């Protein structure tokens, strides 16, 4: 079965990232990238798909068929920063993959089975 993993981070962490200057971001990335590499090497070598999104403040939402508002669709404490699409044997396997995603430790991962 295929599962969409919606990766979300807390507002504080997103704000923290936005406050960093170019050097700070480079440093932070240098710390993050090995974790992601390890994740893709060990846990999800062949994801069906996945993308990282730009920051939530760049979002626009079309509501009620015409009204465009600034920002992501819902005011929540966490915002989606990317997704992964994985093919797993069962929900337990998908939970296992989700628990290893680097953002799982600080944010949340919503697991959505595809309707297929």
């Amino acid at each position, binding site marked *: 079965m295929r599962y969409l993993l919606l990766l979300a981070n807390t507002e504080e962490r997103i704000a923290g990232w936005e406050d960093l200057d170019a050097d700070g971001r480079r440093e932070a990335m240098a710390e993050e990238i090995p974790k992601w590499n390890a994740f893709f090497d060990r846990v999800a070598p062949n994801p069906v798909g996945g993308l990282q999104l730009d920051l939530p403040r760049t979002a626009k939402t079309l509501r009620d068929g015409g009204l465009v508002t600034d920002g992501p669709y819902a005011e929540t404490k966490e915002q989606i920063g990317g997704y992964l699409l994985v093919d797993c044997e069962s929900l*337990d*396997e*998908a939970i296992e993959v989700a628990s290893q995603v680097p953002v799982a430790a600080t944010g949340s991962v919503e697991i959505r089975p595809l309707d297929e």
Partner: protein
Amino acid sequence: MSLEDVFREEWGRSVAILARATGDPALAEDSVQDAFATALERWGNRPPRNPGAWILTTARNRAIDRIRRDRTLARKTELLARLEQVDVPEEDTSVPDERLGLIFACCHPALAGDVRVPLTLRLVGGLDTGEIARAFLVSEATLAQRLVRAKRKIRDAGIPLEVPAAHVLPDRLGSVLAVLYLIFNEGYSTIVRNELAQEAIRLAKLLAVLMPDEPEALGLLALLLFQDSRRAARLDANGELVLLADQDRALWDQDRIAEGKRMLERALSFRKPGPYQVQAAIAALHAEDEPDWPQIVALYCRLAELAPSPVVDLNRAVAAAMAEGPEVGLALIERVSGLESYHLLHAARADLLRRLDRREEAAEAYRQALELAESAAERSFLERRLAEVTTA
């Protein structure tokens, strides 16, 4: 072997095998139900030589028919192929029991907490929706709706019908044990629902047989056996609650106690203590002629470490009152927090105040307990005690 015996034995097994093959518990359940309906018509007084194989074969054929008739099903060919492959054992062999996987699926943390209990009773135990609805005082329609959603979720979310991987097993086993204990308690709290308590014991035995190396599964079974041994003594002829200390020990079921002790010993031999084993050990001490109160207090302390909860603190306080006197118990009860709306906290406080002859405070505590108690037997017990402390 009557059809009812076959049902008890084969229902869960057949549902589990077909659910595993199709990933669809609702389809499995309906097909097995059909098979038993056919058996009722055809068997008469002469069940076939291998009734389990007959049921499974018939249910599998029903499932195949149902899938063939479904015009919209995308995975039709795949599902049919998997059903064709379902092995129907000629004789009862030692094939791994698929019921275990079904139990874990019914108690999966992705399912809402309040549906795990009825779902286990329905799919593994074979109780019908009406029985379960009556036991849990919900309308049959509401319960049926909840069960439909849960079964759909198992299918659509791909909740696995198997024993979880080793590194998540302790956690997931905890959820299974909690469900079985809830079923038992639901049945133990009133006499009319006794069949639920017996079903919980049956399921706990099944779990202990299927997971012989899990001491906590044995611990839960032992605990249920000890509690069940006192069933006949728990209420008097008028349906009034009788406290453990006042119970007629002649009414205790000695076979149950002996079985409980055997299970507890087997559990303890693993030297991997857990909350259910400790609770069973406490229940075992209560079954002795002279309960060893200091030992019971020590076990409650151990339980508080393994599974901290204010209810454990309350029980420890009550045991300490027995071991060291009501003052000590009362001092410990005053330190329990988070149980202000739990009637047994006030009832226990009231009892200790009564024993210290602080009658006015005792009466006040009995009144508080009465405000919160729900079961008729408990209310009537509290009213009697209140009357005792308020008459000079």
